[in-house]
């Protein structure tokens, strides 16, 4: 874990461009960001605003065109693919919108995979996977294939997988994009419990419900941040008026 106060993740003037000259696309255009330890940060914006690209940059899945990126005290914007991979293995957990589980592996085998990649012994990796599945409430489905699980269950398995190597930060890209509202609730609860446990979390979403679970919400448009909202602190209305009760 980090010393309190120092951000886990920091970005300065982060840029990611594609194409050239007339066809130049600035997916991420000068982003400054700090994510404190234990914080849940939500990034909202319309489709094509660059939030997924930003997340890929933050997690080392993609390299920025320019700018500084510091993760756990180490500059990562100039690292090669190999070093980035090593970093992702130990420091970052990813949750994708399309789940991206391996179809032919059971839930437990999916969850233990990052640990196996990190060189953990098969027995320990399996034990960790079982623990994580219990943590997300799917202990009884450890032997199920993804095709036998519902969307919400698959995403929970994906979250368990993201936690396999005890990452410093979990990055989630539209985690409820493919889920119905009941499954969304399950995932919401899971994220909430992660937050309570002190996990640092950055979520990209256009679902306001997910954003509402965060400590801080950032609006993004055309590759840049346009607004920031602190969501801690009370609201002005009571629930009663929201429900239509007068007085």
């Amino acid at each position: 874990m980090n010393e309190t106060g120092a951000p886990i993740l920091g970005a300065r003037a982060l840029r990611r461009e594609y194409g050239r000259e007339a066809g130049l696309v600035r997916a991420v255009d000068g982003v400054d960001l700090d994510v404190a330890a234990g914080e849940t940060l939500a990034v909202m914006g319309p489709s094509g605003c660059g939030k997924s690209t930003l997340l890929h940059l933050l997690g080392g899945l993609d390299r920025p065109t320019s700018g500084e990126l510091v993760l756990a005290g180490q500059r990562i914007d100039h690292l090669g693919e190999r070093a980035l991979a090593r970093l992702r293995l130990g420091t970052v957990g990813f949750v994708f919108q399309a789940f991206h589980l391996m179809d032919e592996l059971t839930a437990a085998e999916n969850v233990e995979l990052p640990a196996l990649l990190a060189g953990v012994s098969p027995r320990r990796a399996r034990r960790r996977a079982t623990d994580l599945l219990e943590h997300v409430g799917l202990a009884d489905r450890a032997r199920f294939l993804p095709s036998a699980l519902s969307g919400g269950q698959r995403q929970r398995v994906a979250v368990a997988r993201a936690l396999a190597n005890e990452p410093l930060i979990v990055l989630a890209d539209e985690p409820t994009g493919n889920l119905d509202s009941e499954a969304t609730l399950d995932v919401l609860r899971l994220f909430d419990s992660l937050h309570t446990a002190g996990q640092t979390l950055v979520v990209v979403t256009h679902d306001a419900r997910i954003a509402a679970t965060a400590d801080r919400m950032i609006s993004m448009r055309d590759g840049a941040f346009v607004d920031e909202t602190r969501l801690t602190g009370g609201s002005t209305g009571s629930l009663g008026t929201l429900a239509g009760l007068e007085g």
Partner: protein
Amino acid sequence: MQQEVVLALLAKEPSHGYQLRARLREALGPVGDAMNAGQIYVTLTRLEKAGLVASEPSAGLADRPDRKVYALTPAGQQRVADWLTEVSWPRPDLAEFHLKLVAAAAAGLADPIAIVDTQRRELLRRLRDAQRAAMAEPDRSAAGLLLEGIVLRLQADLRWLEACERTWTPRRDQS
């Protein structure tokens, strides 16, 4: 409308005022927390005046409203029956906000985008509160269902506000 609710709560059997209050509390959960304790007695009195409800003092103490027993009159029962089959839905009130933006932009009083952002922030906070409360409820509780309704409507309102933001941005450039 709240009058009809109280009438309906009396339909099962005559009850004391405090019993009605308890039933309401149970059905509303945390949403009903801010409700005025005396509100229900005011409503009961109005209903009595309208002839939909009749009260009887309970055995013992007299003239204390919280000790009276209330019951539906035949007119009251009819009113409940009619109410149950009504299909009117709570009126949306988007026009006020929409006109707020139009007026602000036209008169140059304020930036519509700033108004939208401020409103969004507020709605987000409310969404957070409602969601928190919803997650604290056990599965399938009546109160939980109500909270989910609140959450979904807030979500819908927020979507509309996003649309407002998108639409008003070029307009701002024009004005």
